[in-house]
């Protein structure tokens, strides 16, 4: 209040003086002037008003972020008890909403603890862990401000608090409040100095080249307590040699570029005859090897990198194909061969209903309890430190350090990537596990690799466990009671198996005595409507179709109306496959979903997909969110994983998809007949991934 009145008073004085000066102007527009002046002045007045003890820095009317805008610093245990809260201790206003809970639910429990920061409403949050004592330190501040000292402050707070922490004690107000105030002041002063020195430096140096900017791939270097991200632009120029190998996949999450202090050893870009390499020899790889004299690291990422390299020349080839002009151009007549009168088809096709036995959804999974031997990664670098690590593991007093974790994590990451997990996801997961293990004391008689393995197993189990119930039957019954049909929309890119698996889901629902209607909203691909019609005939269920070249959204709406008239329980809506980059098609899909508000949006993805899974799901979610008319957009609710029988144990696509979208895997298609539909067995997937 005081600040507001203060700055408004100063502002009004200046406005009057300014208005007096600018009288000759025909239209001075005082409100705008006032607003500008206040916005310029308020930070300054707040600075003066709130921290009297800070050294008066000559302010030359530059807008500086006010130093006290750190809203809250919270210290709590991993079990949930708040140990110290700066709001309460310093008497500041409490936070609006509950950003801490949102942070825990959507970030820390989703294995994204290696992200740089998290934003919720107007707040930005940064955090750090003390893994040995099981404490979490979270700093909350306004998103529009870019405070530079938060990481620094968090590290300092962690250090100091660990000294006074006692598991039995729950009140730290008296001791810690003063320490915190002092640390806060120190951190701010340090940030000011750094900013001043950086400004001096940047005025002398030429601006960083465009190349460095482009190569600043969003690679997160994990761990907390690193200085600000603003200096990353300068440093990323050095470390970005390996970045050209990796797709700078944008995925909309707030990953800040961190200065890569660790040299690019772990940027697994250089292969040399990895034993798992079974792809064709790639010329581009040879070129890369010749260009770089990097340390040769043994990676199993040869497959993924190889395929990535192979797909890179493809887009250019495809463009060439599109430009080719055929000599005999087909006429623009629509190739629509649907015959409105279907009697001929009916007589010929088999009228016998399909009876293929029980759908595999309802069969118990036979969990073979094979022993869980951990296969040791018999790599060279581990043998070097064998004796010392054995000794330390027996002694048990070893505090885990980042450098200790790196080899084990690298081995795990390679193992994951060899199981077809997207490279980015494997990287993020490994960093999240590192963040949760750093600083922890090893138990006695445990190796680092086994600790890391256990932590990774828990993390994988956590990610793959569904966040909400995947019991569709119950939801269908609930919708039935409300008198409306339950609508499921199948979306996905081209050729993943939407129509096939739609029929399988229909078969399963039929076995539970539910009445199903199919809606043929794929009005683009030739033969799509016929395909569904054949399925409907074999399953003996009604199908709603309007032929080709109609608006799918309208067809869907009419299908749902028809189904509710006929008292059908479930409506399965088939849509056309579309690439995630195709803007008009994504807009059409968004229109369909917004118009009909289905109960379940099922993304159909094939298990063979590699790194593209990340891109597909992010873009789909993004488009659905952007083009939605309502504030709470409908995003992808569930995933249907198809072609699962074609991959033996390379089950990583499931992990990539679930991690990126947060949606659970509801069905798994494992064959091409009606009964080949299963539920995802989380434990067996985790076991397969880490084998």
């Amino acid at each position, binding site marked *: 209040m005081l600040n507001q009145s203060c700055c408004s008073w100063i502002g009004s004085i200046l406005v009057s003086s300014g208005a007096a000066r600018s009288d000759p102007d025909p239209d001075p527009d005082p409100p705008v002037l006032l607003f500008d002046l206040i916005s310029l002045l308020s930070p300054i007045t707040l600075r003066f008003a709130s921290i009297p003890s800070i050294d008066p820095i000559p302010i030359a009317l530059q807008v500086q972020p006010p130093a006290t805008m750190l809203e809250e610093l919270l210290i709590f245990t991993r079990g949930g008890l708040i140990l110290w809260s700066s709001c309460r201790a310093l008497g500041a206003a409490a936070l609006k909403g509950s950003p801490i809970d949102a942070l825990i639910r959507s970030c820390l429990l989703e294995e994204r603890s290696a992200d740089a920061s998290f934003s919720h409403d107007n707040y930005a949050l940064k955090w750090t862990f003390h893994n040995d004592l099981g404490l979490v330190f979270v700093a909350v501040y306004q998103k529009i401000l870019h405070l530079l000292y938060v990481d620094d402050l968090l590290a300092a707070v962690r250090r100091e608090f660990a000294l006074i922490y006692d598991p039995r004690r729950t009140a730290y107000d008296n001791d810690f409040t003063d320490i915190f105030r002092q640390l806060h002041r120190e951190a701010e002063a340090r940030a000011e100095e750094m900013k001043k020195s950086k400004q001096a430096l940047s005025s002398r140096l030429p601006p960083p080249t465009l190349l460095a900017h482009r190569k600043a791939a969003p690679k997160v270097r994990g761990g907390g307590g690193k200085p600000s991200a603003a200096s990353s632009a300068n440093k990323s120029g050095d470390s970005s040699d390996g970045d050209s190998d990796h797709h700078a996949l944008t995925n909309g999450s707030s990953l800040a570029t961190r200065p890569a202090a660790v040299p690019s050893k772990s940027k697994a870009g250089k292969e040399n005859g990895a034993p798992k390499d079974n792809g064709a020899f790639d010329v581009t790889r040879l070129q890369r090897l010749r260009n770089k004299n990097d340390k040769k690291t043994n990676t199993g990422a040869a497959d993924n990198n190889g395929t990535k390299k192979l797909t890179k020349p493809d887009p250019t080839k495809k463009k060439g194909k599109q430009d080719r002009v055929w000599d005999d151009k087909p006429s623009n007549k629509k190739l629509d061969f649907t015959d409105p009168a279907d009697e001929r088809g009916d007589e010929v096709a088999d009228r016998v209903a399909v009876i293929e036995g029980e759908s595999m959804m309802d069969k118990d*999974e036979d969990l073979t309890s094979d022993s869980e031997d951990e296969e040791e990664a018999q790599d060279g670098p581990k043998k070097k430190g064998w004796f010392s690590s054995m000794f330390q593991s027996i002694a048990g007093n070893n505090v885990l350090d980042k450098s200790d974790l790196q080899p084990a994590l690298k081995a795990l990451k390679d193992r994951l990537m060899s199981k077809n997990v997207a490279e980015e996801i494997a990287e993020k997961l490994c960093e999240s596990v590192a963040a949760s293990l750093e600083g922890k004391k090893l138990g006695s008689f445990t190796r680092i690799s086994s600790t890391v393995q256990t932590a990774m197993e828990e993390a994988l189990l956590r990610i793959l466990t569904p966040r909400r*119930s995947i019991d569709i039957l119950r939801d269908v019954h609930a919708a039935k009671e409300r008198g409306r049909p339950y609508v499921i929309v199948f979306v996905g890119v081209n050729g993943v198996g939407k129509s096939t698996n739609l029929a399988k889901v229909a078969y399963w629902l039929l076995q539970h005595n539910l009445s199903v209607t199919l809606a043929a909203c794929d009005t683009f691909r030739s033969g799509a409507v016929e395909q569904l019609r054949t399925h409907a005939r074999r399953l003996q269920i009604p199908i709603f179709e309007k032929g080709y070249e109609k608006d799918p959204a309208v067809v869907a709406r009419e299908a749902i109306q028809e189904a509710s008239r006929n008292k059908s329980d479930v409506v399965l809506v088939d849509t056309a496959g579309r690439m995630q980059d195709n803007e008009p098609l994504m807009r059409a899909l968004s229109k369909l979903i917004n118009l009909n508000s289905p109960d379940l949006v099922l993304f159909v993805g094939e298990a063979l997909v590699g790194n593209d899974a990340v891109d597909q799901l992010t873009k789909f979610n993004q488009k659905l969110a952007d083009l939605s008319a309502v504030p709470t957009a409908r995003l992808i609710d569930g995933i249907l994983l198809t072609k699962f029988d074609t991959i033996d144990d390379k089950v990583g696509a499931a992990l990539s998809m679930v991690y990126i979208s947060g949606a659970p895997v509801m069905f798994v298609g494992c064959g091409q007949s009606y009964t080949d539909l299963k539920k995802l067995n989380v434990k067996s997937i985790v076991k397969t991934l880490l084998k």
Partner: protein
Amino acid sequence: MDEWIRQAELWVGQAESWIRQQPSEQIYVAAAVVAVTILVLIAASCLKSSKPNTIVLSGLSGSGKTTLFYQLRDGSSHQGTVTSMEENNDTFVLHSEQERKGKVKPVHIVDVPGHARLKPKLDEVLPKAAGVIFVVDAQDFLSSMQAAAEYLYDILTKATVVKKKVPVLIFCNKTDKVTAHSKEFIKKQLEKEINKLRESRNAISSADISDEVQLGFPGEAFNFSQCQNKVTVAEGAGSTGNVSPAEQFIREYVKA
């Protein structure tokens, strides 16, 4: 070194000759006594360890389990809680019983996180449970009714819970708020939801849960009295300290 070895050999020789001198019955009696003692010790330790004394606090995320845990332990919830990421595991004497004279047995209470992704932690703890307190948010009940019923259904159909007849207390928390529902309402709604779950789940046997047990009697509406283990409902408020029903439950099932 050699001297010690010689000394030891001497002692062994002496012991041997002494034993040979004793009448044989005494030796047999001595051996029998030793054997019986060992057997008794083993039996006692077996019996002691098979009786679990863990109380499990479970429920949905945000229902007030961690608050209740700290109320039971320290008598106050300190500065508040956030969503738990790990379980709270402690053995202590209940706060209200600390002033009681005489020997009070400490209670082992485990507060399991309620977040859906941490569900496997509950499966680890349940086999050792002597009693389960299922905490329900009485204020925000209607929006979380389905999820709460599903969670409760999962607990009630676990094979270990049914076989050992583990008692369950449904603790309606946050009744100090004005808009909180009554415990009878909550009980009825939960029974209805579990009934619906029963029908949809009986038709299939889900692939993951292989040890599901049928609840209640088919054809009849579900009622908590149909469960083989005892299910009771109580209300209280964790933040104000009104947790006496939980304490009574604990004292009843963990013998002091």
